[in-house]
């Protein structure tokens, strides 16, 4: 298993998590005005919206590293190991975000952990069909799209956008959890042909 872990380049994943944690702490609850298509022309969003992309990138780079041909014909359940690694990454992201919220006294930072779960799940689902490059682009594009159309004219976040919802919003937590679970479920599917497991 140490060879599997080494093949996954854990340093890359750790770097992604560290950047996420550092940015969450540095940015805190800072709000910025960005262009919006909803009525007012601008909307105020937490800068934290962009931060989960770091851990998303680290995870995808990590999962892409390995001997694909040997792993898809291997006798071991590599997909299970990858799922455990991904789940651990999600838990670490949530924990880092909570810690950042405490350190910066910015409760909104907790949402960064939930958003990381959502974006990782989204990226993994897209990755299963079109590869990691497209998965990462879709995740980044989703964040940009949320700033443009994810808030209504009264600067209230829309539910489907997930990222802008308050940290304790039940719908947001549920959607993020479902998306992450879906991403875990499709993990192990390869874009190079189809495989049995």
């Amino acid at each position: 298993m140490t060879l599997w872990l080494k093949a996954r380049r854990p340093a890359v994943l750790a770097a992604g998590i560290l950047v996420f944690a550092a940015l969450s702490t540095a940015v805190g609850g800072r709000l910025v005005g960005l262009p919006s298509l909803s009525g007012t022309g601008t909307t105020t969003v937490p800068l934290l919206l962009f931060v989960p992309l770091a851990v998303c990138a680290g995870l995808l780079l990590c999962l892409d590293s390995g001997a694909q041909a040997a792993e898809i014909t291997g006798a071991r359940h590599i997909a299970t190991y990858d799922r455990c690694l991904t789940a651990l990454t999600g838990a670490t992201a949530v924990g880092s975000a909570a810690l950042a919220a405490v350190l910066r006294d910015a409760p909104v930072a907790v949402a960064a952990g939930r958003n990381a779960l959502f974006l990782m799940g989204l990226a993994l689902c897209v990755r299963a069909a079109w590869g990691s490059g497209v998965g990462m682009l879709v995740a980044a594009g989703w964040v940009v799209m949320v700033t443009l159309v994810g808030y209504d004219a009264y600067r209230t976040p829309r539910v489907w956008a997930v990222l802008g919802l308050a940290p304790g919003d039940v719908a947001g937590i549920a959607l993020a959890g479902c998306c992450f679970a879906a991403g875990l479920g499709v993990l192990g599917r390869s874009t190079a042909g189809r495989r049995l497991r």
Partner: protein
Amino acid sequence: MSAESVCFEGCSFGYRRNRTVIEALDFGFPAGRSVFLGPNGAGKSTVLGLAASALQPRSGSVRLGELSPRRGRDLKAYRQKVAWMPQQIDCVPGLTAREQVAYVGWLKGMSRAEAWSRAVDALRRVELEDHQDRKVSELSGGQKRRVGVAQSLVHGAEVLLLDEPTAGMDPRQRRVFHEVLGALPEEVSVVLSTHDVADLDEIYDNVVVLNAGTIRFSGPVKQFLAHASADAAPGRRAESAYDSIVGGVPAC
């Protein structure tokens, strides 16, 4: 020993929905050393990928004896018995040659300690022991292919599926490779896709020819060479036989 190694029963496969590469293939690779020939784009890599369970057939099944990778309980055992060396050898960033071969051994179900020691042995057999601590990404193209061969030897599979293993190897290394094949136990079947048809009868037992997703010929080397034209030069009989089979004469 069974007369056949990996068998295909009504297998169809396509990478895209409207384009089929293999249609209703009913065929079994003969046991022993088989060379797998065919024009570019015939589907050889696809057939090997199906046999390795890297690809899932759209219909039909693949079997090794009683084991079928389609059945969940057989999958692990099937994969432990089958080794696959694809055309492109993955270089796992940061791993040395020994680590990468040991990793593949571990993937095939070996314990870490066993995979580690068998990796050294496999690299020695392909004359890469002096490079075992070098990163795979730093090796030459031919050396990488030898790492790929070592990966397929490490876990002692019953069936080796090798896709163009000698591409990029120098003549001496090709000889070493053929010696490695020759040293394998009788029970191990080898299916080797190649474009190098020199010395067919000295190295291989059987020839399988694929064209446009269909098996055109499968049988002993002598039967294959019998398809050569009468005026073919002694050193070109294999080429002549290949031309006449691929040219449209169906296999018996």
